[in-house]
């Protein structure tokens, strides 16, 4: 059985269920408790779990992540809300030099079961400093897990998996997805396994590898392509690290033509890892170049007309797929 939930409520259910399940789970962040979060994603949590387990904090991102690591090292499962993913930059040392490395460099004496929630992405003219998609940095940072939900089902299942994971896990939730509705399994033990991709549709003419908010855009593109008689597979990676290379290889073997798309900047982005890995490991399966789509190499501009021009949406994804399938490159 499943119900229809908003992305925001799906994350809220995940928090409620995990906080009921495990008393060591607690949540801290700026302006989350009293007002319930910018997207209502924390509504009612302090009322159920108390203001000790749902903490409004000072504006001290370095301390929040640093203290999250310290709490994780000593028996808790902290969830730290970054308010906007852009502010991860204010706690990079704590994340990269502490959270990611401690277990390894201490010879596996410790675990760091911390979850970092990071609302990200381009929407509503939030401007250069409130619109970034930074997941690519963290797949390049050994010791971290990185997940990016695409819909309410992912949102709930990946957040629960992140909280249960003994590794530090970054959970990037796109701001534009919070109001989006979708089906969510009715099982309060439902989790989405980390490191496993999900096939959203299974056509054989081409493969669109994507994740997060771009999954919906790829599905829209797929519908447009049906009109041209092109039936594509859309692979939702769900987890960026560890990356489900096997699922990619299987899909490439079926489709032979690949487009990789995400909202993060294309240059040096997750798509570069995926496309180059395919080129390396699936060379003989490829009927054509692996095309990459991602945001242009500029900060995100304020004016709507500029903002909407510089990242890939359905029409661009559909066009790239069409050109690839028709060998019109």
């Amino acid at each position: 059985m499943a119900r229809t939930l908003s992305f925001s409520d799906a994350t809220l259910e995940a928090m409620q269920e995990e906080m009921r399940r495990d008393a060591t789970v607690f949540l801290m962040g700026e302006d989350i408790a009293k007002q319930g979060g910018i997207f209502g994603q924390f509504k009612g949590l302090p009322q159920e779990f108390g203001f000790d387990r749902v903490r409004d904090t000072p504006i001290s991102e370095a301390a929040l992540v640093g203290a999250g690591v310290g709490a994780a090292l000593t028996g808790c499962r902290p969830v730290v809300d970054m308010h906007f993913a852009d502010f991860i930059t204010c706690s990079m040392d704590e994340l990269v030099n502490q959270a990611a490395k401690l277990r390894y460099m201490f010879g596996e004496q410790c675990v760091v079961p911390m979850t970092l929630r990071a609302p990200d992405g381009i929407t509503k003219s939030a401007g250069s400093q409130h619109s970034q998609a930074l997941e690519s940095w963290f797949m390049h940072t050994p010791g971290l897990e990185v997940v990016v939900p695409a819909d309410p089902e992912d949102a709930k299942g990946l957040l629960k998996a992140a909280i249960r994971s003994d590794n530090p896990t970054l959970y990037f939730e796109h701001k534009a997805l919070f109001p989006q509705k979708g089906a969510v399994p009715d099982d309060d033990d439902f989790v989405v396994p980390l490191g496993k991709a999900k096939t959203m549709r299974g056509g054989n003419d081409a493969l669109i590898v994507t994740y997060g908010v771009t999954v919906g855009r790829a599905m829209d593109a797929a519908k447009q392509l049906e009109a041209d008689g092109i039936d594509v597979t859309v692979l939702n990676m769900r987890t960026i690290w560890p990356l489900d290379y096997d699922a990619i290889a299987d899909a490439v073997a079926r489709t032979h033509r690949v487009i990789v798309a995400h909202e993060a900047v294309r240059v040096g982005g997750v798509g570069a890892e995926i496309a180059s890995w395919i080129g390396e490991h699936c060379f003989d399966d490829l009927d054509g170049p692996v095309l990459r789509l991602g945001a242009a190499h500029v900060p995100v501009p304020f004016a709507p007309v500029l903002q909407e021009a510089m990242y890939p949406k359905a029409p661009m994804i559909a066009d790239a797929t069409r050109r690839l399938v028709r060998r019109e490159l």
Partner: protein
Amino acid sequence: MAKILSAPVDGARRELGVALLRTMVRVRVLEEGIEKHFLAGDIPGFAHLSIGQEAVAAGTCANLRTDDAIASTHRGHGHTLAKGTSMRGMVAELFARATGICKGKGGSMHIADFSVGMLGANGVVAGGFGLVAGAALSAVQRKTDQVAVCFFGDGATNRGPFHENLNLCAVWNLPAIFVLENNQYASTTSTAETMKIKDVAIRADGYGMPSAIVDGFDAFAVYDALGAAVERARSGGGPTFVECKTYRARGHYIGDPERYRRKTEVEDVMSSSDPIVRMQGTLADALSPEDFERLWSEAREEFADAVAFARSSPSPQRDEAFFGAYTGDRTDGNPVHEFEARERDEFMPFAPEIGAGSQGSGH
């Protein structure tokens, strides 16, 4: 920490008072107008209003030269206008027009005007500390007598860059001035929830930096405190910390449900402390009702003109999105510009035409 109170109003003070009042009225009119147009959908993105805090911007900037630098915050309309930026440039920017001071690329949270030493609003809380420390260091390196002023809120004083930059400016004796607008809230959290101290100014002692606490509703008091601080900085006396006790009369952002405080709290403060009402009272026997009304009507006309200018201005060309991150002529053959042009050519066939004022959906 010396408590500074404002001096009596003599002839010269009167001139000053009128200037301060004019600035505060212009800021108030601008922001009430921004609120109206934001709610009407003319302004995309976020907007944070400083209504109630105008005395800080006015009293501070009245001490500065055009070639002095300021760094502002997400709540920067007042600072920007007070430092000398035109309403036209500001409103056109908020309306996301090509004629905006940042060509429509910045918006309310990223408004800047380098022609008047305004180093920018900042979407990152505490983002201004480093910019001001650097501007002050630059003045020393270039052997000028410029000073640099950082505006920031109480919430920003809990971030690391506050600590690092104030210490750096103190130990290097830089011509920097740190103007805290303690409006008692950081978004939904009151200062009582985020720090155990009553006066943030005590933190300046930890850097060996002199500090003052002033009534942030009294533009004269702010002016005097900053006058002393600017004089010290310009004459090589080093940095000063000025805590202005003030209050945010509007929500954190336009549309804030404000569940964290009672409406009456706001009304109580403003009925007793509105900095504009205060200054009008102080100048009551210096100016006639008509004089006061003229200040308001001039400001309203200035704002109406700015809105008309913005409305008649075009949106940016869509392909502007792909340029401007790097310096140099876009056709100079620099590899970075060739790359930008390639991306423009790739994206433009899919770039939607969007009516000015509509908000990009992100979908």
